[in-house]
Structure formats: structure tokens, C-alpha cells
């Protein structure tokens, strides 16, 4: 629903603005060009995207999620103190974070939802502090290798599509840290 309003707003705004500035003809041409640009864009990134999805599938089958989960377990006990002794929740959460780190969104979501369902059993209908933390951590991207974006850059002719990695890590780390701090702070301040 949100996107419907946004899309309609964009089209109406362009029409109004195009008429006001006397650029109606350009707007009409741009509509058709934009549509073909969408297809071209998709084709330009198709090869790289499929290749990376293949590599990620190799990593997944090689047990990379399980290996990362084991490493992450101690940190996650600190983030979710209420469930630190709940094996089911900790397993699901650490697998969820590991899949997110590897950029395996399709694997991460069901694991995260499993963790969310288990957490919600203690407080049905109300988001507990741990559940809020889980959601905040999943709305902040923590992907180690952003393959889709790299595929777009490669498609656009970048000299080194992965040279943004350090910048992405820095930005992700800051964003996740702010999210965690905000959740911790609001957990103390929030009055229902």
C-alpha cells in the first residue's frame, strides 16, 4: 500500500511539474525510456547476481552458517540476556545473524521468524525488549559482502565493484551500533 501512494505521487508530481515548466514532451518520452532502462538495468546485473547467489549457496551447503553461529553465540547472550539460557532461541538467533552476515536473506528470514515466535511465547501480543532488539538488528543490514550492490556496480562498468566494502562495513557497523544503543536506551525510557 505504501508503495502505491509513493508511485502515484511520483507520477502525478512529474506530470504537474512537467506541465508547469513546459517540459511535458520530455516527461512523456522519459516514461517510456525509464521502462526500458528498468529491463536493461536488470540484464546488466543478471550475470554477477546469479554468480554470487551460486557462490553463497556453496558456502551455505559447506556449513558456513553453522560455523559462524558457534563463533557468535557468546556475543548474542549479551544482546538477549532474557534468553541467554534458552537453547532454542539462541540457536535460531545465532543462525539468523550468521545467515544475515553471509547475505543469505532467504535463509535468514525463516530463522529470525522462528526466534521471534519463540521469544513471543513469554509475552504474547507484546514485543519484549529482546524481541524489539531482534527486530532492530534485522532492520539494520550487517551483510559482510553486499553482492547485489556489487553486481549493480559491475553492471554499470565500475573499475572495482568491491572497493566499497570497507565503507559498507563502517556504515553498517555504525548503523547497527546506533540501533542497539537506541533499543537499549528506549527499553529504559519507554512507558507503555
Amino acid at each position: 500500500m505504501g508503495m502505491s501512494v509513493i508511485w502515484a505521487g511520483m507520477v502525478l508530481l512529474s506530470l504537474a511539474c512537467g506541465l508547469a515548466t513546459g517540459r511535458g514532451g520530455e516527461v512523456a518520452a522519459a516514461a517510456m525510456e525509464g521502462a526500458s532502462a528498468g529491463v536493461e538495468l536488470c540484464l546488466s546485473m543478471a550475470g554477477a547476481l546469479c554468480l554470487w547467489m551460486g557462490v553463497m549457496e556453496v558456502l551455505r551447503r559447506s556449513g558456513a552458517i553453522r560455523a559462524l553461529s558457534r563463533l557468535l553465540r557468546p556475543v548474542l547472550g549479551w544482546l538477549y540476556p532474557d534468553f541467554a539460557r534458552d537453547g532454542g532461541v539462541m540457536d535460531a538467533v545465532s543462525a539468523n545473524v550468521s545467515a544475515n552476515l553471509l547475505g543469505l536473506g532467504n535463509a535468514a528470514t525463516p530463522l529470525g521468524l522462528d526466534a521471534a515466535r519463540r521469544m513471543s511465547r513469554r509475552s504474547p501480543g507484546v514485543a519484549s525488549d529482546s524481541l524489539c532488539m531482534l527486530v532492530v538488528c534485522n532492520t539494520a543490514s550487517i551483510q559482510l559482502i553486499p553482492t547485489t550492490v556489487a553486481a549493480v556496480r559491475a553492471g554499470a562498468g565500475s573499475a572495482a565493484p568491491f572497493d566499497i566494502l570497507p565503507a559498507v562495513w563502517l556504515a553498517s557497523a555504525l548503523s547497527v551500533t546506533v540501533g542497539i544503543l537506541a533499543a537499549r536506551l528506549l527499553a529504559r525510557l519507554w512507558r507503555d
Partner: protein
Amino acid sequence: MDILTLIVPLLLAGAALLGLWRRVDVYDALLTGAAEGLGVLLRIVPALIALLTAVWMLRASGALELLAEVLAPVLERLGIPPETVALLLVRPVSGSAALGVGADLIRTYGPDSTIGRTAAVMLGSTETTFYTIAVYFSAAGIKKTRYAVPAALCADLAGFLAAAWAVRLLFPA
């Protein structure tokens, strides 16, 4: 030759070795993943077509420049390139829309330009916040979401600012 230039062959070789060592059918896994990639593409093509139509219209009409100009004083003070304004608006709402708008910026301004890099880092370091919140809370049957939305939006805002700062810091123009 620095390591980020070689990351593609290194990752491919590393994944292949790890797979062989763990007795995974590497080639079959590659093909399965690549086929899944086609599915992902098929899902985003319609969104890209719809979004780029609207974005190109906005650009041709001059509305995007106008919007960027209005918001420029605020965004520039924060260190965010005003050209990325459309990306900031759709990122929390729709992943495929954000990919469309971001990819268009990367193409228009060049993947190795400051604006192109900022758009790429923004895409890589943020998530589709509202979608994620909706999926998690409906799966867990949560009615009272308490502070989850404001906390998640704080993380988003920090991600956008950090993306712009990180690009300026690591790729001085």
C-alpha cells in the same frame, strides 16, 4: 594489487576449496544458487520497470532537482549528497524500489563517482525497515510493537549518515 581488487577470484577459489573439503557438490550448488538468482531477478524486474518509469519522469520534469534543491541545505549540512534524496525516501519502504532508484543513481552518475558510491553504500548498509518490522511482528503475533519502530528508524538514519561520511572519508574526491 590490493586485496579488494582480487576479492572476486579469491572468494570464488575459497568457496570452491571449502566446498570440496566439506564434500559438497560445488558445481551443483553453484547452479542451484544461480537459478535462484534468476528467480530474484524475475521478482525485481517488474518493480524496476515501474520505479524507473516514475523516477525518469520525475527527473525529466525537473521535480527531482526541485526537491533536491529544497532539501539541499539540510542534507548538505548533514553531509549527504542531495541527489540521493529519492533513495532516502523509498529505502525503508521497499527493497526492490530502493534497488531501482539506487541502481539508477549509480548508472547516471557513474559507479565510481561520489554520488554513485554513496548510493551503493546506502543500499549495502541499510535494510527495508518497515517490511522487516511488518513480517517479524505479524509472524510473532505482536500487537504492541513498543519502541521497535523508532529504534529501527534511528539505525536507518545512522546508516544513511554513516554511508555518506564513510564514502567521503575513504574516497576523498
